[in-house]
């Protein structure tokens, strides 16, 4: 077999030798390159200072902070209700789960318990949000693999339907602020339920479609199988949680091990991966979407009429103390640590951002792999700079 240049398909080294006599004896030095902050595959404004030997990665230093808005400081000057709007802007593709984690922490602090119906509505909203977030993660991961825009548009097609449902719930599509301390902002309107049922009926077919197109796609499998393997021990030691930890084969899901709201009343499986490579991290999100649909279906069956807000004062003044509440967010353990001094604003508002902490292992995952693999690994971690930089 010969190529257009008249060269045989010999190993690359052999080819270069013939093309450039003396090329193999050239001295090479490590080169440091900035990937980002303005780069289509950095999922926001994020910089990676990478040292290469040829195409092989020798070292990586992630540099954050381009989107730092001081959310934790801002929260100290806002009331407990106003802070909800700040949480929307943390992980801005999963505002519902941010709202949920925050209101759970504030309720723990204030000793409030939301009514049953509110808890069901929150779980329905949070699971829809998980599907939307996983769709984004899957679409962008394929974008990073080189399947430019087409799979992403497929994923956005379904995400759009979820955003429409959110619009019915609260009027907003991205920065939702749907949940309140002690309940939700309002009950779902009448036409929400038929729309939700329609979505629940259609969505499994769409997931089948992704699976048919992607799961055994040869390019995807070849590019991701065995790349950037994360072991369970390493993941736990580095505080990695969420789909990333489960992809390594450890069934750790806070909805099961530490159930909050109504998760103890629904049945679902915790999908796990085997190898902990990029392929498993891609596949687990498809599996989790199916489980989220199961949860929403059961909630729709179980939900009963009733109030959606607990009796609470307009200006909440939780007693002095602290509380840490965590949920299984789409990206991992999403926790809020709140400290109250008895006033109307939190004394300290701290976010345990899953994608920020999951990034800890990025360096270990990509060293020794090539630039193109690093882009895919970054996509498989599913970071969101709003949450990383706060």
């Amino acid at each position, binding site marked *: 077999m010969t190529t257009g240049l008249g060269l045989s398909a010999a190993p690359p080294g052999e080819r270069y030798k013939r093309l450039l006599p003396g090329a193999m004896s050239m001295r090479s030095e490590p080169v440091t390159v900035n990937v980002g902050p303005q780069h289509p595959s950095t999922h926001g404004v994020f910089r990676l200072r990478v040292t290469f030997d040829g195409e092989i990665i020798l070292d990586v230093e992630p540099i954050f902070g381009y989107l730092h808005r001081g959310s*934790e400081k801002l929260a100290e000057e806002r009331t407990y209700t106003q802070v909800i709007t700040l949480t929307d802007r943390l992980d801005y593709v999963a505002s519902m789960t941010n709202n949920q984690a925050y209101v759970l922490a504030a309720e723990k602090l204030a000793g409030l318990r939301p009514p049953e119906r509110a808890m069901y509505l929150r779980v329905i909203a949070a699971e829809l949000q998980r599907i939307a977030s996983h769709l984004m993660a899957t679409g962008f991961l394929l974008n990073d693999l080189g399947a430019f825009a087409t799979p992403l548009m497929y994923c956005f097609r379904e995400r759009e339907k979820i955003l429409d449902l959110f619009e019915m719930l609260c009027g907003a599509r991205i920065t939702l602020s749907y949940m309140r301390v002690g309940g939700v902002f309002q009950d779902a309107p009448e036409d929400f339920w038929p729309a939700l049922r329609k979505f629940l009926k259609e969505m499994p077919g769409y997931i089948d479609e992704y699976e048919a197109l992607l799961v055994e796609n040869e390019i995807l499998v070849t590019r991701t199988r065995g790349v950037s393997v994360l072991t369970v021990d390493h993941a736990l*030691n*580095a505080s*990695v949680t969420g789909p990333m930890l489960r992809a390594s084969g450890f069934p750790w899901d806070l909805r099961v091990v530490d159930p909050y709201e109504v998760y103890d009343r629904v049945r679902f499986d915790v999908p796990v991966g085997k190898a902990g490579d990029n392929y498993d991290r891609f596949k687990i999100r498809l599996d989790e979407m199916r489980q989220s649909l199961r949860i929403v279906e059961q909630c729709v069956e179980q939900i009963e009429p009733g109030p959606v807000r607990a009796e609470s004062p307009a200006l909440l003044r939780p007693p002095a103390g602290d509380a*840490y509440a965590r949920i299984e967010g789409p990206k991992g353990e999403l926790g809020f640590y709140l400290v109250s001094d008895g006033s109307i604003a939190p004394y*300290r508002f701290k976010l345990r951002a899953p994608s920020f902490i999951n990034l800890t292992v990025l360096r270990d995952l990509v060293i020794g792999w090539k630039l193109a693999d690093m882009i895919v690994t970054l996509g498989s971690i599913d970071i969101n700079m709003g949450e990383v930089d706060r």
Partner: protein
Amino acid sequence: MIRPIPGEELARRIQDACPGAVERWAGLDLWVRPERVLEVCQHLKSDSGLGFNLLNSISAVDYVEHFEVVYHLTSTSHLHSAVLKARVFGREDPTLPSVVGLWQGADYQEREIWDLMGVRFEGHPNLKRILLWEGYPGHPLRRDYLEAPR
């Protein structure tokens, strides 16, 4: 179901391995002496009955007269959790031992606390600012922080 270990019980369980490390306890919280944090964490992680293998989060709070650093820990095998706190006095150079050697997950979190709160972690291999840039004046999450004069 994860069981939170009350501070009193945790104090009892670390008493033999780390005598005198505990300052006090209340509810689910346990306060330890700041200089003994690493030793206590080492025991919490390696003791087979405690086995805290997952460091959920490290938070720092500025209470003006002191800083409080809070460790939320979970054991995935025993399904229990604990809250460990350490009070650090002094505003000039508050220092705690770093736990990066035990849990890699502390790496970015300790850097973040150093950046925003100005608590230094001794023994951290790469303690530099993470969200703000090198040379930024002050640590903005401190209660007495004022914006740089215009």
